[in-house]
């Protein structure tokens, strides 16, 4: 007998894919309960998951299609709004790069897949991208090279059984708290948890061992660990050694051998002897899990290459409890990649918007929850922008046509978590305004442009996904409704059995800091500021937590160590001038944090004007995410 008021579904915030119950009467959502039987979240949720009900009952929803008339948006019928989109889109040449698609990492697979069809088959464009894809493309490329398919190797549930867990860089208890909790539980049961992180994050505190390297040297450190492991292997000849048959092995080993322990220590601040000691534990482990963050705040490609290489070198990747997981910040980042709406090199919508002479004239956007709209100027000068989202958002101001979408619990949809686990959420609340699901909206637009898709429901769309998307062939809505999802099958990729080392370059990172600009500034993040907050700002308690920080530091803050603060003669909340080596300056408050290394500084990347004004000259730094370092000086205001 089904419960009256509690409906199981999948949390739609980060890429962990936790199980949750929503307490609902079918009209409104009143509360949340964790789902104990879920294999990953096991009855736990983070602050964001616990407040999904607040987001789902916000009044800040788009409820009707809208059309801009005389500068103002007015309500319109679906017929009218769709007719306008069709009329305008026909005026542009998709094949010539005039139409761009900005897809969402939060959309269901069904919506992502049909948006892809709309773009490729109806608008005839390949200029596309996913809102928060930046770093994930690099993770996918590195993993595809190493393991033969673009996706995580292994499962998040491996954390519960593995002997050894290496967390590279990510502030995981903030970004994906439930994964962080599972790692903490693993540490308590006796797994060796090692964190590489320049700041003393919570997961660093909860780890067996924390290597606190200088900024910019994570990749070098991972390579040094590989070198030390290789040295043990060479001494211990009994190892079975398929590893040395893999393509790229000789070059990789040659690169590793070139690592100088003196240069390593100078660059990273870590002694090679400590790495050697760590390698012994790595050598002993039977199952190993590698975790790093992927997406907007992910690692750079050389660091990810170093990680996948070390994973292969351990020779433990065939163990069922081993894994290499790019931990996605948004629920369906992986799925959106799988659905083929990411911006391949050469046809990235971000590039098209950034390049002043690109032919782009029209943009079709879904969700875009980031608080910061990059290239806003350019977008506002486009001939036509259509926008579709469940929630009100700054993108509405740029759009000529706006479509509402249902919230994730108002329609059937599947979502692919960071570890390729595909899960289904069934509709458990009626959208009060009779809003069309994304796939149905795209189908209607396609229909008006002369293409009939014939989908009756989301399950029908999924059947098409199973037929066309590699790895999804064994899956269906009926199958996914039985348990807690299923990982898509890597064997669908022809190279899935072939493993290759990525080419690496040993570089001893030289800090760009100078005596004049002595601080290495990095972009940090924090718990309540998830994805620059368009969603969290629509809640009550998480928003208060966010505002709490803003009240304390209304101009934003820069985190520095207590020692540096004493040296600069500043106290917490005092204003300072921060100037970068390219000449941009900002006035900002100091936040003193013992977790920060001397000579480094963090600014949170959610505070809008800070990022856009201060970091604009650092476009590359922004894209490099966690590994970006900007030399700055800090002076009394």
């Amino acid at each position: 007998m089904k419960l009256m008021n509690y409906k199981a579904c999948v949390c739609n915030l980060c890429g962990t894919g936790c199980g949750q119950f929503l307490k609902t009467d079918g009209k409104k959502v009143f509360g949340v309960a964790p789902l104990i039987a879920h294999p990953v979240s096991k009855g736990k949720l983070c602050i964001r998951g616990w407040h999904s009900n607040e987001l789902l009952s916000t009044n800040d929803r788009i409820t009707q299609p809208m059309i801009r008339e005389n500068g103002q948006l007015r309500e319109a019928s679906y017929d009218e709004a769709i007719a306008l989109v069709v009329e305008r889109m026909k005026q542009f040449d998709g094949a010539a790069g005039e139409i761009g698609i900005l897809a969402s990492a939060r959309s269901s697979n069904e919506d992502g897949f049909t948006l892809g069809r709309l773009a490729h088959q109806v608008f005839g464009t390949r200029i596309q991208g996913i809102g928060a894809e930046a770093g994930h493309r690099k993770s996918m490329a590195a993993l595809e090279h190493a393991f033969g398919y673009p996706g995580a190797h292994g499962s998040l549930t491996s954390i519960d059984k593995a002997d050894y867990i290496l967390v590279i860089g990510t502030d995981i208890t903030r970004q994906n708290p439930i994964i962080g909790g599972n790692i903490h539980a693993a540490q308590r049961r006796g797994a060796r948890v090692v964190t590489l992180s320049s700041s003393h994050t919570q997961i660093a505190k909860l780890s067996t061992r924390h290597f606190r390297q200088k900024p910019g040297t994570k990749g070098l450190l991972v390579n040094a660990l590989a070198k030390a492991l290789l040295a043990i292997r060479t001494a211990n000849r009994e190892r079975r050694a398929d590893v040395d048959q893999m393509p790229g092995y000789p070059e990789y080993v040659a690169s590793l051998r070139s690592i100088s322990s003196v240069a390593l220590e100078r660059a990273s601040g870590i002694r090679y002897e400590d790495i050697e000691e760590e390698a012994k534990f790595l050598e002993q482990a039977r199952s190993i899990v590698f975790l790093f963050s992927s997406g907007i705040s992910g690692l750079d490609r050389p660091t990810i290459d170093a990680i996948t290489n070390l994973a292969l070198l351990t020779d433990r990747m065939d163990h069922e409890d081993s894994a290499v997981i790019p931990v996605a910040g948004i629920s369906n980042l992986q799925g959106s990649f799988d659905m083929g709406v990411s911006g391949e090199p050469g046809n990235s919508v971000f590039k098209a918007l950034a390049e002043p002479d690109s032919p782009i004239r029209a943009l079709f956007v879904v969700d875009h929850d980031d608080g910061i709209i990059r290239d806003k100027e350019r977008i506002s000068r486009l001939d036509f922008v259509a926008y579709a989202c469940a929630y009100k958002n700054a993108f509405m101001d740029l759009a000529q046509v706006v479509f509402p979408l249902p919230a994730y619990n108002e329609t059937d949809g599947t979502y692919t978590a960071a570890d390729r686990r595909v899960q289904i959420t069934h509709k458990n609340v009626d959208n009060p305004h009779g809003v069309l699901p994304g796939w149905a909206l795209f189908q209607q637009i396609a229909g008006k442009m002369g293409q009939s898709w014939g989908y009756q429901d989301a399950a029908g769309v999924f059947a098409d996904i199973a037929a066309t998307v590699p790895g999804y062939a064994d899956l269906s809505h009926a199958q996914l409704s039985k348990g807690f999802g299923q990982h898509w099958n890597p064997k669908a990729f022809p190279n899935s059995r072939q493993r290759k080392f990525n080419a690496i370059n040993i570089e001893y990172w030289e800090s760009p800091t100078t005596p004049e600009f002595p601080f290495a500034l990095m972009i940090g993040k924090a718990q309540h500021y998830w994805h620059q907050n368009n969603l969290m700002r629509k809640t009550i308690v998480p928003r208060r937590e966010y505002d709490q920080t803003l009240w304390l530091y209304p101009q934003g803050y820069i985190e520095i160590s207590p020692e540096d603060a004493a040296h600069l003669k500043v106290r917490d909340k005092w204003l300072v001038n921060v100037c970068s080596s390219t000449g941009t300056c900002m006035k900002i408050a100091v936040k003193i944090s013992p977790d920060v290394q001397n000579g480094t500084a963090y600014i949170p990347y959610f505070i809008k004007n800070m990022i856009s004004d201060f970091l604009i000259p650092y476009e590359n730094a922004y894209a490099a995410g966690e590994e970006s370092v900007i030399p700055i000086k800090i002076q009394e205001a």
Partner: protein
Amino acid sequence: MSMYILSSHEIKQLAEELRASHDVYGPQVDPQTQQVFFDQLGDVDALNLEAPIPSMPVKEILFPQMEQVLKYKYDAETQNVEMAKPYVEKPKVLFGLRPCDLSGIQVLDRFFLGQEFVDDVYLTHRRQCLLISNTCLNPFPQCFCVCTHSGPDADEGYDLDLTKLQDGYLVKVGSEKGQALADAHDWKPAQAHHLSEQKAVVDRCIDLFPEMATDNKAWVARVMNRITTGFVKSETWEYIGDQCFECGACSFVCPTCSCFNVEDARMCDGECERLRTHDSCSFEGYARMAGDHNPRQPVEDRRNKRFFCKLSYPQSKKYLRPGCVGCGRCQWVCPGDIGLPNVVQYIRREITE
């Protein structure tokens, strides 16, 4: 106090009969996930009195996670305000409460009704409530009610109390309301041996508690003493604070946590709603005061506040019992490892070291 013995069938009949005039809530198992919820019964057959402890506390019914407590519309031109009370009183039966949840309701009663201010929203939900408790025959994982004097059987606060025995359910009457219900039926009176059988059932259940719980029994009192007198070392609180993920889960699943937040939100047509939502002392914004002062900014200070609330004498005086009812739910939901029984362990470790 009168006692009766009822068959399982008669129990179901009672629930069915009460459904005619009341909203009946009881434990039921979700078929897909096997998770237990104490929720409204669409069908009496879903009532499962042998189901394990519900995953969410029964306070959800009387003090829900999010609730509209006021609706108003202000007309700026005429300066007219229309207000409406959106919550309504409905007769309810909470059928098959675990003793820990019953104790939780008593604590909430003393917080919302027993002090200077009476909370009208809570009172409305609570007023016509029939409480039927159900003795636990065996402890569930993480349970430790034997340490907090709230189980495995109920000793006060119920209208009717059930214990499953060989012959059927022993029904104890605990209030006039319960007696009136008994009087309206032709229930078979229980014998003296039924009462001794019940005692044996409870004793057996206590024996089944894991060592950690029984062992902790005296320790909870000892830890209360430590916490009240402020003798817990700051290192211990920091050790606990380092494991706090600031999710608020412990407060949301605690049968006695009563802190809430109030927020006015605009709806369409210029109407506003006032929402009351659960809140948690683990959040930084919770303790912030005007002028940016925050007496509990570091996470360990926020964490120890929670355990002060659950395990200190001044709080217990307010609730007339410890603030913790030993249900163990905080231990299930914590992504760290700082459910209340573990905190007792950590402090105990500090004392014995």
